[in-house]
């Protein structure tokens, strides 16, 4: 296993120290593995926290800062954080206006955040609302199963809800914005290679030299199907068409188009893919209002990419454009 780490069991602890050292605006509660804004809590502002397994950086810690998250809880690699962490984060950012929990839809995350919310209600009486993201169209949507995974939309939601909270909106309003984002966003990804979980020491799944996995999850969960390698044009089509058909996105819709690298794929390839994605959207008459190209929600060293579309109106767009100052997303300030 080739990684710039000390020991598998220290990866998260070491990375948190690195984040703290690199970003003076942020603080880290090492006991609880919580990254939070140095100016927390902000009086009267709705706090927004998120969290999940590590290995998806910059998600979530890299999105802590003005106009986005107030705190992020880092679980072990690919393992949901535990309720104590979310409870600690909730307390740290509680400015009296309530706290929004942004939860990606995985059984573990949902249950751990749920327990944290129960604890927060019991211990401090903090008002907590949870919004769950479940945007991955690779997974069949069904109330009989765990439902769709939360992936790329999470990034966009954290930005947009963060802007709403920064404007001083109420917890219910911020949660509404967050739900609107989730309802209007869809994603799908593919993997050219597996990732390697440090503690496992070897690739999570085997993939032939001439194969890729379509519809992969950000934890290396197998996807819809395994196929023979193709071109960026074909990859784009296999990702975008199901997304468009799912919501569905219609001619004239304005979207944020987010082409995301999974950790081991360099930017030049993301631009090649973005180009193909943009052509398909153009063909459908879907208008790209804003774009984001880069590795923002990753799966360790996995090579591959995902596409996320978010339908936006003027309101969402102005929240998207609002100032943000975090390690991974920054503009307007």
């Amino acid at each position: 296993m080739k990684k710039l780490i000390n020991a598998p069991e220290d990866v998260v602890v070491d990375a948190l120290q690195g984040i703290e050292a690199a970003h003076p605006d942020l603080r880290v509660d090492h006991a609880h593995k919580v990254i939070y804004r140095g100016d927390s809590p902000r009086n009267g502002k709705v706090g927004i926290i998120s969290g999940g397994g590590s290995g998806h950086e910059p998600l979530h810690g890299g999105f802590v800062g003005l106009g986005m998250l107030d705190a992020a809880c880092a679980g072990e690699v690919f393992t949901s954080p535990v309720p104590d962490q979310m409870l600690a984060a909730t307390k740290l950012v509680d400015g009296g206006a309530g706290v929004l929990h942004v939860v990606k839809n995985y059984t573990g995350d949902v249950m751990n955040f749920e327990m944290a919310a129960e604890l927060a209600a019991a211990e401090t009486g903090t008002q907590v609302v949870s919004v769950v993201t479940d945007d991955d169209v690779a997974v069949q949507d069904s109330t009989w199963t765990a439902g769709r995974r939360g992936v790329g939309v999470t990034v966009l939601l954290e930005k947009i809800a963060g802007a709403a909270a920064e404007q001083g909106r109420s917890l219910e309003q911020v949660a509404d914005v967050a739900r609107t984002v989730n309802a209007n966003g869809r994603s799908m990804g593919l993997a050219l290679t597996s990732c390697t979980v440090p503690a496992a020491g070897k690739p999570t799944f085997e993939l032939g030299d001439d194969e890729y996995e379509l519809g992969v999850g950000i934890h290396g969960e197998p996807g819809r199907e395994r196929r023979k390698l193709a071109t960026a044009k074909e990859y784009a089509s296999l990702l975008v068409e199901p997304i468009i058909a799912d919501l569905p996105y219609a001619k004239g819709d304005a979207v944020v188009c987010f082409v995301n690298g999974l950790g081991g794929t360099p930017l030049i390839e993301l631009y090649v893919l973005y180009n193909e994605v943009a052509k398909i959207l153009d063909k459908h008459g879907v208008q790209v209002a804003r774009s984001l190209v880069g590795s923002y929600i990753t799966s360790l060293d996995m090579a591959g990419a995902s596409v996320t579309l978010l339908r936006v109106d003027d309101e969402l767009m102005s929240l998207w454009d609002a100032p943000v100052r975090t390690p991974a997303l920054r503009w307007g300030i």
Partner: protein
Amino acid sequence: MSDGVTRTDLEHWLQVFAKQVEDNKELLTELDAAIGDADHGVNMDRGLKAVLVALEQVPQATPAALFNKVGLTLVSTVGGASGPLYGTFFLRFGGAVGDEEPVPATQFAAALRAGLDGVVARGKAEPGDKTMYDALAPAIDALDAGLAAGEVWADALTRAVDAASAGREATIEMLARKGRASYLGERSIGHQDPGATSAALLVASANEALHDCA
């Protein structure tokens, strides 16, 4: 043969479970790699190592307090899906096991049932969803049935182990409807569920540690 499960026995159960999880860490992780995210072994091992440390911090605890501590420790250290589920299992087990020791066989069985109900309350699993439930539930059913039929504790426990193993094996052919494996749909068929595998270890370690207890 004694007349119930002592505190020492209960601790022994947890120690054996911790050991079995440690010994099967790779297996659990590999099973999870196939239909999940390759962390179940690591998760459980981390949690049970923390439980062993926690046990030393509460030398005087009653059975109820002991399992409350175990449950909280698992909730606080495992994470993922299995953390809240096993955590809730032991919290509810502790709630039902009482403050007295030794714990009579029937009360031990009732505590297991309470734990299982906790798992269902937390995770909403139904039979055949391909989860830890599918190993735990048949085992507890078997234990209850055995005790109800007047079998001796050791025999009833052995039945429970067999039922857990059979339940674990049965998950292979199931289509996952809960947890991470559910994303796979049809492709989850043919793989043994990692949580059912660790749950079978929990039952097997009860048998190993408590066989001669009650």
